[in-house]
């Protein structure tokens, strides 16, 4: 009754328009590229200076000057463009990307995002996350609805260090699709097996309704 990460990626992909410029975060969001609906083609951006790259090459055919932000090998497509890092982040901050999809530890009803640090232990690393949350026309998060221990990841206020303030516009969780509108979680879709009360019990802030709530379903992937 809950979506797998692959199914969440499929669901997120359904909202990407033909011709959109898209940045996918390292890890699970990278899977979104595999599920572009037929007839639509998005152009993917990676922080290290590529627009319009293709999927991973077969093992043994990697070219390590042709990698994505996760340092994984990718391939060229017709129409690929290379550029330096300052131009790459001009695309990010300058409002040129249509969609950025990131993972998250916590999302607050204000749209605040925490996805770069789990606290003072270990080595801190931020990469491009703080830049990516500013500038893209839509900043979406793809994540499990609750933590491994069952605690809500959709919360009133983030407890972990922030990546950005008021930046997230939509969350694709394993149980629901939720928009953030004027500092409130607005429920758009939920898995049909779950009642609204049960979903609310797993959510750390009030779920508001604004029109009908659709069924969140995805094919077996």
């Amino acid at each position, binding site marked *: 009754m809950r979506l797998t990460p692959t199914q969440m990626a499929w669901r997120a992909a359904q909202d990407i328009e033909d011709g959109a410029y898209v940045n996918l975060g390292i890890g699970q969001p990278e899977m979104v590229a595999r599920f572009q609906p037929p007839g639509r083609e998005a152009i993917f951006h990676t922080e290290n200076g590529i627009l319009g790259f293709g999927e991973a090459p077969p093992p043994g055919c990697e070219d390590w000057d042709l990698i994505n932000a996760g340092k994984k090998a990718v391939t060229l497509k017709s129409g690929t463009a290379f550029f330096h890092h300052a131009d790459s982040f001009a695309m990010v901050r300058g409002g040129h990307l249509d969609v950025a999809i990131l993972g998250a530890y916590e999302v607050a009803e204000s749209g605040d995002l925490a996805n770069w640090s789990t606290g003072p232990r270990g080595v801190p690393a931020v990469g491009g996350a703080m830049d990516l949350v500013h500038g893209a026309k839509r900043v979406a998060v793809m994540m499990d609805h609750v933590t491994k221990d069952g605690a809500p990841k959709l919360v009133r206020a983030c407890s972990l*260090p922030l990546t950005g303030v008021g930046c997230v516009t939509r969350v694709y969780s394993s149980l629901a699709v939720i928009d953030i509108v004027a500092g409130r979680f607005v429920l758009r879709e939920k898995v049909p097996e779950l009642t609204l009360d049960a979903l609310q019990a797993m959510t750390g802030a009030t779920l508001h309704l604004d029109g009908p709530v659709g069924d969140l379903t995805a094919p077996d992937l």
Partner: protein
Amino acid sequence: MDKTLPDPAAAVAGIEDGMSVMIGGFGGSGAPIELIHALIDRYLATGHPKDLTVINNNAGNGHVGLAALIEQGMVATLICSFPRSADPVVFTEAYKAGRITLELVPQGTLAERIRAGGAGIPAFYTPTGYGTALAEGKPVEEFDGRPYVRERWLKADYALVRAHRGDTMGNLTYRMAARNFGPLMCMAAKVSIVQVSELVEPGGIDPEAVVTPGIFVQGVVEIPDPAQEEALNRAGSRYPEVPA
């Protein structure tokens, strides 16, 4: 005008204790492995240079290149955005033991600080980091109703960069995503040293194709078939090699 240098040792001979050194590359892509290893060779032979401040996107991977530079204890401070990698053991141990200082900078801010340094812009405002721990203590100003954080330029004594084709005047092209920080770092350092896979005479690069104009480059050294960090790490390499 001929900016050609004979070999990697000559290329890094001017780097002294306490200097700041920008090192190009995003992970292994664009990393100037031969120049970094030449710097390690000099340190092993003379004890210098040390106490370096290194600016790179990452913190090295495995035991070659930047990781090897850190492993030798030559780096006092690292300015980077993402000090993690597939095998980050060298930086992680140095950091946890307090042997290296980390200044963490969001990646786009790092790139723009370097660009600003090269362009003569001492500070700029960015939305990145506003309201986060990485903007603490930095001036904030509102423009058109949104808050922005003031960030300073970043310059360095040296830049070590890998490009693809270079001419003897220092004009450069890069290879695919190995371009990343290279053009910015060449602009922001007093002395930019570039290893190129192919050195050509002036006229050997189409002027329309030049990415870094030679004015930003002080030295060029030809290293055909440069080592690639990812390939070295997959082969389990270390630098310097441990005698069997």
